[in-house]
């Protein structure tokens, strides 16, 4: 498969595909971060995670429309407003869902899976009724267009770099929240031992609701970032949900670093294989390898020792 390419060309291919892989990596990381909070920390399977992401994307779309109509002068900055609003919209919906559905099901994880799948169907149909079945795209602000030439052969798109920086920034924020703040300590305490956490005075119900809300909010931000590199349709979220769950499981459910490492390896493998094989075969091989490794090492790449 390498024949016919000279060495510098191969290097350039790997660099370009590697960069395309980095963009995919950013999307995976953004989606998986929310899931790593919800699934990794709380142990809740949220099959509607993709739809929370799409909600963020639609919010971004609406905000960009509003800016284009009412404040065209500030159009370059709309993304930051959209990001905050997307976080709030997805987060609030997440807290409502936790209150209405999830809190009744903490002891039945498989049933949560079914209920949130139902929720995802309802959300999909709502998006379709509200925004139509066709995919919508946003106009990227002008400063995000174009690409940076690194060498003669290698060019990198600016919107890709932006999404990547965003992914890293939010990963850092989530890390600080989970592992350095008082709230994160409460979340981890509640997950590890609900009864004892309650006994030492943590409001477990409030913590659960907030955790779920923040996880969904991060998905909303992921959706906002998603609009910068692709268009959004009612079912776009479902396309990513399996990959995202695999990323989280492959990384080791409770480990944030593991999630990032697995997002990196899966996205790089997929994007480099894509150049040499057809897109579908690249995906099949990547997923098969991941599933195979998970069968051999069910606890994932990075596991935290827990007494169960």
């Amino acid at each position: 498969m390498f024949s016919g390419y000279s060495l510098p060309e191969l290097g350039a291919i790997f660099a370009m595909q590697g960069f395309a892989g980095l963009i995919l990596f950013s999307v995976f990381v953004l989606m998986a971060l929310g899931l790593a909070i919800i699934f990794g920390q709380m142990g809740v399977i949220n099959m509607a995670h993709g739809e929370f992401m799409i909600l963020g994307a639609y919010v971004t779309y609406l905000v960009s429309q509003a800016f284009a109509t009412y404040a065209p002068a500030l159009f370059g900055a709309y993304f930051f407003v959209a990001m905050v609003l997307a976080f709030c919209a997805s987060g609030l919906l997440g807290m409502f869902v936790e209150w209405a559905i999830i809190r009744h099901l903490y002891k039945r994880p498989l049933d949560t899976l079914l209920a949130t799948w139902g929720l995802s169907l309802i959300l999909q149909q709502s998006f379709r009724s509200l925004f139509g079945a066709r995919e919508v795209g946003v106009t990227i602000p002008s400063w995000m267009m174009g690409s940076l030439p690194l060498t003669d052969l290698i060019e990198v798109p600016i919107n890709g770099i932006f999404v990547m920086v965003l992914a890293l920034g939010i990963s850092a924020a989530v890390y600080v929240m989970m592992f350095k703040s008082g709230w994160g300590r409460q979340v981890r305490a509640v997950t590890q031992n609900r009864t004892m956490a309650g006994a030492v005075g943590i409001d477990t119900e409030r913590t659960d609701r907030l955790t779920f809300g923040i996880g969904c909010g991060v998905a909303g931000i992921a959706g906002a970032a998603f609009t910068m590199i692709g268009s959004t349709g009612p079912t776009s979220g479902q396309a990513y949900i399996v990959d995202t769950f695999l990323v989280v499981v492959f990384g080791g459910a409770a480990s944030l670093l593991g999630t990032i490492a697995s997002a990196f390896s899966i996205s790089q493998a997929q994007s480099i294989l894509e150049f040499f094989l057809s897109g579908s075969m690249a995906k099949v091989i990547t997923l098969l390898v991941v599933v195979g490794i998970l069968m051999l090492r069910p606890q994932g790449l990075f596991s935290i020792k827990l007494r169960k």
Partner: protein
Amino acid sequence: MTKTSFLKRDEAVGFAILALIIFIVFPLMLDDFRLNLFGKYLTYAFVAVGLVLCWGAGGILSLGQGVFFGLGGYCMAMFLKLEASTPEATAIQSTPGIPDFMDWNQISALPIWWQPFNSFGFTVLAILAVPALFSLIIGFAMFRRRVGGVYFAIITQAIAAIATILIVGQQGYTGGVNGITDLRTLMGWDIRPDSAKTALYFVNAVLLFACLFIAMAIRKSKFGRVLVAMRDAEDRVRFSGYDVASFKIFIFCVGAMMASVGGAMFTLQVGFMSPTIVGIVPSIEMVIFCAVGGRHSLLGAVYGALLVNWARTTLSESFPELWLFGLGGLFIAVVLAFPNGLAGLYDDYVKPRLKLSRRNHAAKPSNPQLAE
């Protein structure tokens, strides 16, 4: 009654009522078109019955049953396609005698793994053996390492995703996104006219009852009891000296084979097989058939499969936008409000009253809608 040693009175009545509905009421009430549709629903009931064993009794939730359904369906479709692709029927192709989609994809010879499907005996064997082997591999890898519950569900779902991508991607060998279509005859018997569909409906019904009896036998056996014990307290069963993994692997294989038989019958009844029936969405819908009927009830699963599919057809005919809301609501309602499904509702509300009325009027005949 001769079966009293095997079935309790309630269960025998339940079986009799289901048989009455499927063998007599439906064929008399429905026209050919609707009966064919119900034949299709019956093929889904095979999967639901398998899921009652895996999920209801064994506690193993597989979100990849569509893969096994598809394996059976594709095996049958390959046989039928080869029978339909005689050199005479495909004379206009650049390579006559191979399936039309292969010709469209510039494949000039029948791939080697297609060739055994010229034989009906091999096909029937494959319908049972391929999913069994496949589920054996998955089950062996997962259950030996004590992967269960949520992780098992996610990984089986990933397998369903892989299967769909693979089938769609390898268009020349699998018919791609359209699937294998234009199937005509089974050993010379034309499967397309209404009379054949009606006959297939009855074949489906007989096979489904065979599956139900096998499932019932498994549940009544000591094996079934160990399975339930394992679901409720896996460690205790393990510490009592049972090899938990082998039990799980076995029941997972049984569920897979039932799904596969359903898939093969689906291909016959509907006349095509496509990757849309294999993927993540149909696989998880198969779980809802079982959940609506009642995850612990074999007969309930059949009612669940029939009801949900019937509701889908009716709703999406008249209100297409409403169906997804309905299905989504059903998922949530079944989990939150009645986790034991229709069978649970029957046990909680109908059965006590029946017992009461039976006690009051000992001679009065009862007519329960649902029973287990």
